[in-house]
């Protein structure tokens, strides 16, 4: 047992470092900068630890914790995304006076929760990870506590999320009742026989997960929370928990529910179509960029779920490719928001972007690339993401899903074009301050370069993803 602890090395390292920097924060005054830099360092070292660990499947603690290529991939994606979110938002945090030392620590705690989510092979461990993550997110949503909107979004998120966690927990207990086990592998073995009760359990669990990835019809919290929370938190919400949520969804399909895939699939197809349509239609009328990105993220989750809905490995792979490119696009989009600063105030309305192409040509160009990529226009990265997903969908002869999905891309293209119109076609109104936020510029640059050059060698990502499902 002790010999096998190196399987848990990244988690152990992360936990101990979190507690250590918490102590540093308590005893050192004005320690935000120190803690912030230490957290980045911790994230970097955890990435190195995971890269060095082997990709063989190994299970520990009564087979409740798995480490394999799948979980390692998602952990790295979560860490890299968090690193970019944290660093590009540092200036924003300082400007908004959110510079409390707890901020990065809570982010690290939520990362730890997600680690256990993607690695869990047992319902109880999965639930613990999920709750650790959710609790951290409640605090983060309301971290700007003197701001009414931020507190409101925190409460809203807490109440709704607690409800969905309750449903999920109910599903878990049903599942335990019907199968007599909490271990994923054992559940999968039991479900082969009689599964009427397990279908109920599955629906409850799915509701909980759909809430976490903000898929329709469990999306209601998303626009309010996205708008109310500080932008730095919104960008974290938009990217990282979705990755973890999708990973868990795929994991549930792969192991415990692999025998009742049919029932599960029907629901996911419905959720996917509903998310795509709502994401496309509801975003049209939005005036606030963060709200618009909330609806757009609902739509994007719909596309990612379309890949999951196929119920085959190639479909899951396409979803993972999709979510990875989604991460790149959203990191770029949110980093752009950090640069919209005028007289110390951050602008959030689409109308504030009016005509910025004249005074800020590079920022405008970055917006252009990211928005066309979000709309899925070739030759940008977003097109390939959609291409992979729909290739997998058509392979399963789900033509209706493919056609509805692609038609919604046309509708959603409309609101992305509307932003581009504001940026390029309208008259210039304001000019923003020169930004000192170098890291945000760096991450915009990285994001745009990836999106622009993705077409040169598109298989680079899918080659990695292919290896995740070898065992």
């Amino acid at each position, binding site marked *: 047992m002790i010999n096998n602890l190196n399987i848990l090395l990244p988690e152990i390292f992360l936990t101990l470092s979190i507690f250590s920097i918490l102590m540093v924060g308590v005893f050192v005054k004005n320690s935000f900068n120190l803690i912030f830099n230490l957290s980045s360092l911790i994230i970097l070292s955890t990435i190195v630890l995971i890269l060095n660990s082997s990709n063989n499947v190994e299970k520990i603690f009564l087979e409740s914790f798995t480490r394999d290529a799948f979980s390692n991939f998602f952990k790295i994606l979560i860490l890299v995304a968090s690193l970019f979110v944290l660093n590009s938002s540092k200036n924003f945090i300082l400007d908004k006076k959110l510079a409390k030392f707890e901020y990065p620590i809570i982010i690290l705690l939520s990362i730890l929760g997600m680690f256990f989510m993607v690695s869990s092979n047992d319902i109880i461990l999965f639930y613990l990870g999920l709750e650790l993550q959710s609790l951290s997110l409640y605090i983060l949503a309301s971290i700007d506590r003197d701001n009414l909107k931020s507190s409101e979004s925190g409460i809203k998120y807490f109440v709704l999320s607690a409800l969905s966690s309750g449903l999920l927990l109910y599903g878990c207990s049903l599942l335990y009742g019907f199968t007599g086990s909490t271990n994923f592998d054992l559940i999968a073995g039991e479900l082969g026989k009689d599964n009427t009760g397990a279908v109920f359990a599955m629906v409850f669990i799915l509701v909980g997960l759909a809430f976490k990835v903000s898929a329709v019809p469990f999306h209601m919290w998303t626009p309010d929370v996205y708008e109310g929370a500080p932008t730095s938190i919104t960008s974290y919400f938009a990217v990282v928990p979705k990755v973890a949520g999708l990973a868990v969804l795929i994991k549930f399909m792969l192991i415990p529910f692999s025998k009742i895939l049919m029932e599960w699939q029907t629901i996911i197809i419905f959720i996917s179509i509903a998310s795509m349509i709502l994401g496309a239609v509801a975003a049209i009328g939005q005036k606030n960029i963060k709200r618009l990105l909330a609806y757009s993220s609902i739509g994007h989750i719909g596309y990612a779920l379309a890949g999951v809905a196929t119920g085959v490995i190639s479909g899951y792979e396409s979803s993972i490719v999709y979510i990875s490119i989604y991460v790149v696009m959203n990191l770029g989009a949110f980093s752009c928001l950090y640069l919209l600063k005028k007289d110390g105030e951050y602008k959030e309305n689409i109308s504030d972007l009016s005509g910025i192409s004249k005074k800020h*040509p590079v920022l405008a160009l970055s917006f252009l690339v990211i928005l066309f990529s979000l709309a899925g226009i*070739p*030759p940008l990265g977003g097109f390939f993401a959609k291409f992979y997903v729909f290739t997998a969908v*058509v392979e399963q002869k789900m033509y209706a899903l*493919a056609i509805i999905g692609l038609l919604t891309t*046309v509708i959603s293209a409309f609101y992305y074009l509307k932003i581009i*119109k504001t940026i*390029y076609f309208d008259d210039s109104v304001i000019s923003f301050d020169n930004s000192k936020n170098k890291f945000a510029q760096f991450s915009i640059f990285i994001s745009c370069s990836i999106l622009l050059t993705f077409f040169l060698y598109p298989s680079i990502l*899918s080659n990695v993803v292919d290896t995740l499902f070898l065992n």
Partner: protein
Amino acid sequence: MDFPILSTLIFLPLVSSFFIFLSRGQKNNNSAIYISLFSSLATFILSLFVWYSMDYTSADFQFLEEQSWINDFIKFKLGIDGISILFIVLTTLITPICIISCINSVKDRIKEFLIAILILETFMIGVFCSLDLVVFYLFFEAGLIPMFLIIGVWGGPRRVYSAFKFFLFTLLGSVLMLVAIIAIYWITGTTDVTEIYKIKIPKEYQNLLWLAFFSSFAVKTPMWPVHTWLPDAHVEAPTAGSVILAAILLKMAGYGFLRFSLPMFPLASDYFTPLIFTLSIIAIIYTSLVALMQDDMKKLIAYSSVAHMGYVTLGIFTFTKQGIEGSIFQMISHGLISAALFLCVGVVYDRLYSRMISTYGGLVNYLPKYSFLFIVFALAGLGLPGTTGFLGEFLVLTGTFQKNYLVAMLATFGVVLGAAYMLWLTKRVIFGVTKNDQIKNLKDVNKSEMIMLVILALLVILFGFYPVPLMETLNVSVDNLINNYETDIKTISLN
């Protein structure tokens, strides 16, 4: 061929647009203009070299390039035959002309404009070179981005509406094609066009797939009733944008029919011929009538484009040698003539900022050189013998008469209507009484305008009298297309 000449051709404009981007910060835009002019001329010369070194006697694809691309299953495959080379040369010819034209007409943000034009050129050449469905789709769709910006940033008062309409119409048509492309991959196991030609797509899938491709090409051609985006886009686009739109973007669809719809879905093409004939005839007659009633010169030419593209689709679906050669010829000829007519409108628009026919009148007294060139193109546009316009329409009609008398007669009636709106336009703009005093002070065409218009006029007349170079290039490829089509029809319908 070891040297990747087609990739060079495709990516040369893209690379030079990157250099223009880097030259940012200087006060004058001369360096940007010179770089773009130089690179587009280099591309043109390179494409002429490719044309020259091609083997016309073989119907195979030449200058093949292949590279593994998306995973193992989709290859980045390029290659050209006698049909595509003509469109490539047309593209590379029109681009430098557009760049010259925008020196006069684009006042604002010229650097960005040139970048957009060059990027667009890359995508357009890519469309005509690609031998893989996904590569084709990539280039076909990517062209929307620069064109959207060209219309929206440098366009007229209703530019936003037009740019959105253009983008969304085309995108809506194309997404169905994407589903079809993916479906073809799962049916045949490849998206390589040459492989699909050999494998043959089963009968039961053909109709649906054909319709999906049709939805994209019909919007792009544009065919009646989905042509409504074209007049808006043309009217609002800046001169260079209209020229590229009319001369090249519309031809992508005609090319798509020839390269994909016909050889890949022969049975469906045969089955849907009546549909195409009906739509083409409506396009020819209805839009000619609409063109008659326009007050806006650009709108008139835009509607005439729809009518002319009607001949193209008509010719392609006759499946006769004359019909197909005629429609390819018509596309090239329309590429030259409509480009020239839009440039002509641009010349006077730059002086008076009006496109209304009523603003002008009696130009012949004050702008003699301009009037002469305008008349040449107007006559070419109505299909006067001795110009390319005549040959294209004549061949298409010859092909149509072999298939269906009624359709051919109706189409011939369209020629008369074409003459009517073109002559009436000429009468109102060039001749007549000068009511507007501003016209008396106008300067005649300047040197750069002269260069572009004279080059186009010479080409229109040269190929009108001596079409042999074009026809020789086409000949074997078209023969091959028709032979394959006929054998396909026989073998598949026997099974």
